[in-house]
Each structure stands twice: as C-alpha cells, then as structure tokens.
C-alpha cells in the first residue's frame, strides 16, 4: 500500500513535470533552444492565477487568466529575445534565457515580496479523496486530470490539425515546411503559445498543490524540465512524457530510500546523469 501511494504521488509530480517539459521539448524541437525562462512563464501564471482567485473567488477565472497571461508572455519572449539571436552559437540563447529567468525571479520578489503568497480559499487543497484506501487531495487529482486532458488535446492538435502537421513538418525540416507554404514564423509563435499556456496552468496547479506561490517556484521545476527533455531524447515528445512520469516516480521513491544521502533535486539529476552515461542520446532519442 505504501509503495502504491509512493507511485501515485510520483505520477502526480510526473504530470506537472510533463506539462512543463512538453513545452520545453516543443521549443527545443523547433529552435534548438533550452528555454530555461519557461520558469518565468510558469511563475507568472501562478501569480496571476492566485491574484485572480483571491480577488474574484473563482478558480475557473484564475486558470483562464493564468493561461492568457502566460500565453501572451511566451510568444513575446520568443519575438523580442530569441528571434534576434537565433543565428548565434547555442549558448547565447541559453545564457540569455537564464538571465531573463534570474532577473524576473528578482522582479517577482520585488513586486510580491520574498515569502510567497497563499490562496485565500483553497478547498481543493483541503479536500481529501479516497482511492480504495489511498488518499490524495483534490489538487493532485486535478493535476492528473489536467495533464491527461491537455496532453491529449495536444496530441490531437499535432496529428489531426493542419497547424499540427505544419508544426511537425517544421520541426523535421524548416525549408521543406516553407516549400509547402507553411509559415515558419506562425508555427513558432504558436508553439511558444502552447508551451506557455501549459506552463501557466501548471503554475497555478503547483501553487494550489503547495498552497504557496513564491518567486523561485519556477526555477527548480524548469531545471528539472530541462533534465527531462534531455532524458527523453531532445525534441522527442513521447520520450519527454515517459521521462516526466519516470522522474516523478524515481524522485518519490528516491526521497524515501536515498533521502539520508541526497536531497530530491540531487536524486533527480543523479538519475539523469546515470541514464545519459549509459544512453547519451536519452531514453527514446535516436543515436547520432
């Protein structure tokens, strides 16, 4: 029973990672950029969600507002930061992205204070749900539901719609896509929008899960998101999802069995390093 509970908690974490990592992998597949600043989008979503929820009392409104704010910020980051430096060596965009993340984290601290804010009313957090002897709170259930719904929508988008097919074409070869009349620029903006909406929603959910929204909440999850997309095989969507769930579970068991030696983040990165030393191309990546 204990193991099942660990597994379940791990999978729920894996779901939040997946919502973060899917966006990172989209961006990486398209532009070869490690989009660390996704954490900023995530944190912005969480703050906007919290402010709306606390002022209006509506969680639905909070999610919509968070998705919109995040969905706006992401494409702006692409347009004004990444796009002008796409032809530079890869570390340039990475460092710019880290810079943005650090600056914005400090910005959130200056705006909202260093200690974080809590939801005025967080009924999901206090509602326990029984699952044949296992107990989760409602936030955890909603995280799982949201992840499954949003990721399924994405799968439908990628395989069934014109824009999704265009996206996949652009990922595999921008010049081919262009010759089919697919607007590369539109695809890029769309990808940043999708990635950011997912991150914004994930931000609100994690805020609810911890009942705390703080300036630094995005950074660790974003670093782990990067670990996950590397683990899954960069730019590989199924690999990313697999790696997300796997990492959630590894952390959940690891903190129990290795907790005396390493903290949670260290366990995650130890796992990443071990896997990469054995499979340098990631779990589902193709050998280069």
């Amino acid at each position, binding site marked *: 029973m204990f193991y099942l509970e660990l597994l379940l908690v791990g999978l729920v974490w894996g779901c939040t990672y997946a919502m973060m990592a899917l966006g990172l992998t989209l961006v*990486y597949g398209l532009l*070869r950029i*490690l989009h660390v600043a996704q954490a900023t989008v995530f944190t912005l979503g969480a703050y906007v969600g919290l402010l709306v929820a606390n002022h209006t009392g509506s969680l639905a409104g909070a999610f919509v507002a968070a998705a919109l704010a995040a969905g706006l910020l992401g494409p702006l980051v692409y347009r004004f*930061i990444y796009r*002008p*430096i796409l032809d*530079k*060596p*890869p*570390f*340039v*965009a*990475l*460092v*710019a992205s*880290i*810079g*943005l*993340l*650090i*600056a*914005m*984290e*400090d*910005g959130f601290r*200056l705006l909202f204070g260093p200690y974080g804010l809590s939801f005025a009313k967080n009924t999901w957090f206090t509602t326990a749900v029984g699952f044949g002897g296992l107990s989760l709170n409602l936030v955890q259930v909603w995280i799982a539901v949201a992840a499954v719904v949003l990721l399924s929508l994405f799968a439908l988008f990628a395989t069934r719609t014109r824009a999704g097919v265009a996206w996949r074409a652009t990922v595999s070869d921008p010049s081919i896509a262009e010759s089919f009349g697919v607007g590369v620029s539109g695809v890029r903006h769309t990808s940043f929008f999708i990635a950011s909406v997912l991150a914004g929603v994930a931000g609100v959910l994690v805020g609810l899960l911890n009942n705390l929204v703080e300036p630094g909440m995005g*950074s660790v999850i974003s*670093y782990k998101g*990067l*670990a996950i997309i*590397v683990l899954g095989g*960069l730019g590989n969507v199924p690999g990313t999802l697999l790696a997300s769930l796997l990492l959630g579970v590894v952390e959940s068991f690891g903190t129990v069995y290795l*907790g*005396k*030696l*390493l*903290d*949670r*983040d*260290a*366990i*995650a*990165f*130890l796992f*990443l*390093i071990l896997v*990469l*030393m054995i499979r*340098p191309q*990631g779990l589902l990546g193709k050998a280069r």
Partner: protein
Amino acid sequence: MDYYLSVATFAGLNVILALSLNLISGFCGQVSLGHAAFYGLGAYAAALCSVAGLPMGVSVAVGMLVAGGFGIVTGFAALRVREDFLAIVTMGVGFLFLGAVRKQAWLGAEMGIAKIPSPLDKWGYAALAIGGAVAVLLLSLHVRRSWMGRAFGAVAQDEDAARSIGVDVSGYKIAAFFIGTAAAGLAGGIYAHMTQLVVPDAFNFVQSVTILAMVVVGGIGSTLGVVAGAVLLTLMPEMFRFINDYKLLVYGGLLLLVMRFSPEGLAGLVHRVTGRRLA
C-alpha cells in the same frame, strides 16, 4: 581599509573563477553550468583539512586536487555527451553536489563548516587572492599562446575534424576540465580560510550563473575581456549600493542584454570599436 581589502579579495577570487571557467568553456568549447560545484569542492576540502589541523598551504592544495579530481570525472562525462546535453549534465553536477553536501552530517549539512582556522590577516588574503588571479591570468595567456590553446580551439570548433588530424580530443577535454576545476578549487580554498565558514548555498546554481555571467559579459574566450567582466561585476554592486538590493535583477538583466545585443561581450565591443582583438 578593511572594506576595500575584502572587495579586492573577492575581485581576485572572481577573476580566478571566471578565468577557470573560460578555460573550459571559452578555450575548449565545453559549456559548463555547474562551475560553482568545483569552487565548493575546493572550499569544503580545504575547510576539512584545516579544521583537522593541516597548515593552510596544504589544505588549499588538497582543495585544488579534490576539485580537479572531480573535474576529471566530469570531463569523462563530457566525452559521452555534447553541447546542450553537456550543459544540462554539468548543471546536474551542480545540483548533485549541493544535494549531497546538504545531507551529510560530517560536512555540517545545511549549517556547513564553521570555525575554520584563519592564519592570515586581511592584507594576506587580498595578496593571496590577487596573486592567485595573476597566476591564473598568466596561465591563461600562456595556454592561448601554446599549442594547447590551438588544439583547444580545434576541439571547440570541430571535434571530428580535430580527431582526423590526430588531436586527442578526449585528452584535451579532460585536461581542460582538470585545469579549470583545480583553479576553481584554489579560489574555494582561499575563500574558506578567509570567511572561516562554508555553507552549501554559497555554491548554488545562482553562483554558477554568476561566474558564467562574468565570462560572457567579458567576452567568452577572451582572457582580458573575462578579467574585465569579473572585476566589473564584482565592483558594480559595491559602487552603486542601491544595486545590492536588486543584485539578481541587474545580473540577470545584464546577462540578457549582453547576449541579446553584444554576444561577444566587452571583448566584442572593443573589437568593434578599435578593430583589435583582445588576447
């Protein structure tokens, strides 16, 4: 006076750290996002030795060797993964170091190691840090002029082509990691004795990024540019006290702006204005 001495000491330490990272990332082309871990390894190893009663010189040397030893291990990792993968792996090395130190009782866990013997006065540490910085500066200039520098350039620009002309790419990567991380260990050893206290948080990801910021603001690959970047980023928060409250905002913003508008940093700016390339 004490204040200026401590600023000078930190400027010296930062020059050592930035130049040592530049050796790995700028010269040899191996991106590292976890350089603070080696700074920390040097600090912790030196602290343990000194607390155990060894003289400071020996402790600092041990710190360098421990950092360099782990650097070699990381260098081996760099043989398996490249570029973006390597960036994430080195970032992981940083988190692994922090997460491991935080949980070890014999390393003081979160509280760190305190009451480290401190045999020198403020003047002594300033002299030591600046002396160390000058030594690493001379080493960097020498490496650049030597055949090692050219071979590093070959590895950084095209590994496969380097192999096909007989360059031992693996050997050079490991050498770069060893030299760079051992130098970071030197900075750590000096730091530990000067502050008499080491805690995990002094060596976190933000510290790694700060070192990287000095390198890229100065101009990755340019020794003199990197020295200027390190000194500038050390002095800036001191000169404008108000910046201290917004230190990360300024650091982050600076990184972002430099990458966005002048990715070659100060060295690139000098090149554009004067037409001369900095060493």
